[in-house]
């Protein structure tokens, strides 16, 4: 079974983002970029499927600027076999991403697509579900555990009340949650090997997808700041303060 894993290049999760003074967006200049953490979990899951003999080939896809090829290289170093870079400038909305991915799925015919449940930049949490809908496939979102066989996947999901299991016919889309696995660090030999793995370059036009944003971003602003408060010395004093404030 072939597995497709879309990976997104985002601001590293440790970076404190700064809003640009002109409120057009956040400052990306000289900021460390990394693979979206949920996508790392997706790559790891795919590599584990391959190690277990359940996946035969892993294709990592990124939609973004030229530098997104580095994100694909990271996936290749973790164990993906080849990459597809769909080059675009500017933000691509989840629906356009899903349309490009659908076109790639139509060409590649995978048995499973594993995406991160959300990207930590726009926090949309849409792409996997949109892709599944466009394909008419089943989905297992916010995956906690995957049990894959030839024709179906049992996916345990993290939901508001606890855990839920769905049985999804293959092919299907799965989106990863935090505790699905712990992604590996690529070893140096694997990083070297990844440099020789092929990355195909494409454009959205190759797939007939218009990536012009549909939503108009009018402004990006800093959230209201919370001022720091006071330090108290004892538990009793803390409770006094909370009583005074009407909180308890």
């Amino acid at each position: 079974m072939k597995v497709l894993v879309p990976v997104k290049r985002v601001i590293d999760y440790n970076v404190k983002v700064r809003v640009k003074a002109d409120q057009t967006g956040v400052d990306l200049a000289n900021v460390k970029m990394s693979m979206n953490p949920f996508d790392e979990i997706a790559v790891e899951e795919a590599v584990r499927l391959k190690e277990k003999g359940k996946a035969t080939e892993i294709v990592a896809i990124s939609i973004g600027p030229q530098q997104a090829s580095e994100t694909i290289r990271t996936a290749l170093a973790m164990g993906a076999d080849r990459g597809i870079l769909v080059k675009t400038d500017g933000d691509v909305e989840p629906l356009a991403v899903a349309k490009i991915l659908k076109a790639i799925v139509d060409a590649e015919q995978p048995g499973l697509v594993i995406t991160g449940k959300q990207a930590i930049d726009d926090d949309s949490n849409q792409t996997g579900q949109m892709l599944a809908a466009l394909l008419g496939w089943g989905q297992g979102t916010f995956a906690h555990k995957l049990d894959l066989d030839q024709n179906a996947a049992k996916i345990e999901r993290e939901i508001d009340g606890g855990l839920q299991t769905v049985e999804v016919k293959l092919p299907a889309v799965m989106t990863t949650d935090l505790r699905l696995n712990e992604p590996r660090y690529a070893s140096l030999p694997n990083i070297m090997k990844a440099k020789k793995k092929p990355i195909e370059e494409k454009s959205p036009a190759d797939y007939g997808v218009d990536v012009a944003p549909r939503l108009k971003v009018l402004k990006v602003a800093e959230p209201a700041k919370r001022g720091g408060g006071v330090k108290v010395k004892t538990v009793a004093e803390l409770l006094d303060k909370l009583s005074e404030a009407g909180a308890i």
Partner: protein
Amino acid sequence: MTSLVLAEHDNKTLSDATAKTVTAAASVSAPVHVLVAGENCAAVAEAAAKIAGVEKVLVADDALYAHLVAETMETLILSIADKYDAILAPATTNGKNILPRVAAKLDVPQISEILKVVSPDTFERPIYAGNAIQTVQAPAGKKVITVRVTAFKAAGDGGSAAIEKIAAGSDPGTAKFAGEALSKSERPELTSAKIVVSGGRGLGSAENFKLIEKVADRLHAAVGASRAAVDAGYVPNDYQVGQTGKVVAPDLYLAVGISGAIQHLAGMKDSKIIAAINKDEEAPIFQVADFGLVADLFQALPEMDQELAKRGR
């Protein structure tokens, strides 16, 4: 011009996330209809009919909807989508699971987790774990929106909407419910509790987490946790507060042994009052806390338990 709200419920009780979403929906496009999809969910439909501002409650009562499986919910919502200008759901795991499918099939962009309705086509939403707030304008046409319910007041009671049964949609047969393991708790629900007491990595074990629970019970509070505490297995996943877990905004959030990573702050910084107990005085949680106590939690929590008992809590 009407909007449709997807009800959040467990077939018996209507979650107040629904009334909060109705508030958002009313400022996008009124009147508001509520869709209750479920199995044996008549009581939920009746509760939804009482929400002020709701004109009609549509009920799809069928075994197909017992667990709101996204694939079947997609066909159901699409079967009635023509009549609505806006389709909204609370940004619960159900809303997040279902609505993007609907948006994709309608070929419209979804607007996720809105915090504010600026005007019927313009919304504020958080990006980068709430470290930036984006104002977006939707194009003409149908709107598909998930709502961050902590940012909206619940619509009041006093409505008397008509309840109308609708036919079940088709079952695409691509996915089915196969079981669940829900956390059982006598405590208030995390996202709607007035007080939340949360523990982090500092607790050190599942056993020690009982210290948190004791204090929480004295305060009739819900119990939350940081990602680190969930990853370490001290508590189940549904306790997680943060960017990718639950977002809470109680009257009081007491963070114990939580350092305050931005991903955690994203889930609680809109709380009315934040109090923090941490032994590291440099912990970032103190930068957002109204009241901070630098102390060893293993002394502070039992002391708080006794002190609350003394005060009759």
